[in-house]
């Protein structure tokens, strides 16, 4: 510790104004503040400050992301080994998962940080901690087969267009990680959708490949022209409710397990860092949107839109809804700041997710679009709530 302090103290002059690496000062500062909380003292009142800073806040989100991350690594390896006919022992699976997921995360962090450093040194401000979360969220939403150059491209788009163009962390109106994903989704649909992208198949033992079907539960549910109940269809494809809940099925790296997201959500809500209003609102939105269709299809017994017949709770555990509503929708910068607005925002995300899933089979994953769409509306929601609230105030001029 003393040793580190000495290193920083001796190198500081090179990065200070007029030093050799003046332009790289943000890197130096970011590294130093990573190891040491700076000893800045209050200049005026209030003389004492809360211990919580942005670094701690963002690290809590990272900690909340650990369950989906670890599970995602395991699941990716597991699916890959099953599909490739390789042994599925814990160690083999975890190593395989690491080999697939780690490069994606590393590329995301490295490329993203390069952009952050570039913008920070041009703008002469320090590197914000917000990227720590974006850089991990983004890879977790991707399919495991994603080519690394696309990861680099996606995170670049997310950081530059989604955030830095608007002034950096705190000033972006879209969630940068989702912006990056949406870019990849529309620019390279072949690598982002379909049946084959969700599992990495290594051709070691080809006998396993024949039996492998990569359809996601969302794709199964969207199959047209069947009168039978969709759950049985899902069950036939191997997607029972518990399986969907626990998440051991092919899908995006971190988004399959509802259970893991639930653990993360509990931590975020308990620490007060993410808004429970958005999360609960989102769940309500899903149920409210899904139940009428379900009841209708129960009554009529037949439906032209098969997904209407899906038991509504399935919507909560399928696809990336749990991951999206826990980690993406609650990003405080792009979500509304007012309490009622948060309820509406969360509710609308859940509602839209289901609508997109049911009525727009071209986009099986509705939650990404729903969140980005509601991101656009959150300033408006805030505006209306503030307006309404100020009317009740006794004016003071």
């Amino acid at each position, binding site marked *: 510790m003393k040793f580190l302090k000495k290193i920083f103290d001796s190198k500081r002059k090179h990065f200070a104004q007029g030093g050799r690496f003046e332009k790289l000062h943000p890197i130096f500062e970011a590294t130093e503040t990573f190891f040491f909380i700076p000893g800045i003292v209050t200049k005026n009142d209030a003389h004492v400050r809360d211990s919580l800073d942005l670094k701690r806040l963002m*690290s809590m989100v990272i900690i909340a992301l650990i369950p989906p991350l670890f599970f995602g690594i395991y699941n990716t390896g597991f699916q890959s080994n099953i599909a490739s006919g390789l042994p599925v022992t814990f160690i083999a699976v975890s190593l395989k998962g690491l080999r697939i997921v780690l490069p994606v995360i590393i590329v995301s962090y490295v490329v993203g940080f390069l952009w952050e450093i570039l913008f920070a040194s041009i703008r002469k401000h320090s590197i914000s901690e917000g990227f720590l979360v974006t850089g991990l969220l983004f890879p977790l939403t991707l399919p495991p087969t994603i080519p690394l150059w696309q990861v680099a491209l996606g995170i670049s788009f997310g950081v530059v267009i989604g955030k830095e163009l608007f002034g950096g962390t705190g000033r972006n109106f879209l969630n940068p990680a989702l912006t990056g994903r949406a870019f990849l989704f529309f620019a390279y649909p072949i690598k982002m959708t379909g049946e084959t992208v969700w599992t990495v198949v290594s051709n070691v033992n080809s006998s396993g490949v024949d039996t492998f079907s990569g359809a996601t539960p969302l794709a199964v549910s969207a199959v047209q022209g069947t009168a039978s109940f969709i759950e049985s269809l899902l069950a036939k494809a191997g997607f029972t409710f518990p399986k969907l809940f626990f998440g051991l099925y092919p899908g995006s790296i971190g988004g399959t397990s509802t259970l893991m997201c639930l653990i993360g959500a509990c931590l975020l809500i308990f*620490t*007060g860092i993410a808004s429970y209003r958005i999360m609960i609102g989102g769940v309500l939105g899903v149920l409210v949107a899904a139940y009428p269709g379900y009841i209708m299809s129960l009554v009529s017994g037949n439906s032209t839109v098969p997904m209407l017949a899906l038991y509504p709770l399935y919507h909560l555990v399928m696809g990336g809804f749990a991951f999206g509503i826990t980690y993406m929708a609650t990003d405080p910068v792009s979500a509304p700041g007012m309490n009622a607005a948060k309820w509406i925002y969360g509710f609308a995300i859940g509602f839209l997710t289901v609508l997109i899933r049911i009525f727009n089979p071209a986009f099986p994953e509705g939650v990404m679009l729903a969140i980005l769409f509601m991101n656009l509306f959150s300033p408006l929601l805030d505006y209306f709530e503030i307006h309404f609230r100020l009317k009740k105030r006794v004016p003071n001029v």
Partner: protein
Amino acid sequence: MISIRTKKGYKLNIAGEPSHELEQLGKPTSVALLPERIPFVKPRLKVKVADQVKVGSPVFEDKRNPDLVFLSPGGGRITKIDFGPRRVIKEIVVELDQDEGYETFPIFNEAQVENIERQMLVKAIMTGGLWPLFRELPFRDIAAPDSIPPSIIVSLDANEPFQPMPEVYLKGKIELFEFGIKILQKLSEKLFISTSQNRSFILDQLNSYVTHICERVYPADDPGVLLYHIKKSFDENRAWYISGQDVLLLAMLFKTGKYPVERTVVIGGTLVRGKKHLLTRIGAPLSHLTKGRTDKTEKARYIVGGIFKGYKGGKDSYMGFYEKSLVLIPEGGEKEFLGFARPGFNKPSRSRAFLSFLNTSAFPMHCNCHGEERACINCGFCAQVCPVDILPQFTYKCILVDEIEEAIDHGLLDCVECGLCTYVCPSKLELCNVMKNTKKACYLEQL
């Protein structure tokens, strides 16, 4: 009695709580006036260095209203007039004589106060030098003597850490306080006196006077918070307030005919030994209060007036006219290795992001910011604590883009300058300071 429920606010659990014991301090060698710390005043000096003054001699007046005089809290010789940048008068130091002389003021008994005209009463308080004790909301300037306030608020509570407890400064002075109340009743028809539920001493002794019961959370005791919760229309905004202890001064002036200089001050904070209430006088030197109570090992910050609202005082400076609290806590400034990753059992935080939420003991605190300034991420913690329901995160942005009208619509002028938004901000923004300065600028523009 009306109960006021404050849903917001925050109770800071900070170590260094002073005891309720009251110690009478001896006479200091010098006292001082600090015009710099009196809000909005434009002082014009009436004395020179080496002049001889008595207790109650005018030392300076306000250029805005020459009838508003500030009197010497000590009898002796003016030894120093200290100017700061731009000729602001920082300190006027009076070296005390062995036998201090007193200026005399008219004495009033209760019947006389009962029958006196309001105008005469105002004049008596002004010549007695105690008019500055009345402050006017929302800008907290000294009250305008020729106006009639919609109400006067007296707060008998001390929720900011380390403020004098009303049980201590009112002990044995209930009658004096009642006399002070009579004076206030003459000044305004509506008089609001607030205290909190568990101050049984006050509730027993002054039951007939207390009008509002506040909650025991900072800053529910602030007159601005009380006003925010009870006002029905905008013409109640310009209420006056006076602190409970200052009501005693008012009464003393009228009872004794001398300029009162007695003050109960609290000395607290982790760097102080023997934290307690001290009976001393207005303008006492800080060193007089801390004598024999500090160790010189750690660098201390001298906070005059309270952890949240006070200012940084020099070791050799003096207590101000309004300030009733002196807090010594470590200056801090050490870098902390991997601080963000530690479990944080003893890191005080309003959030539950540290394990300190399991720890209910009082935390020693220092003046570290615990992080660097970042952009606002709209986390809304500030709005969760703001006692007057301002949305500091939005109001702050309004101010930054010069939308002052919108900021005022948001309730900027209701801001009680409690500093809680600044305290909780994880981006370490100076929210309260920005709002305070904007309020000040608004006021100066109105003048």
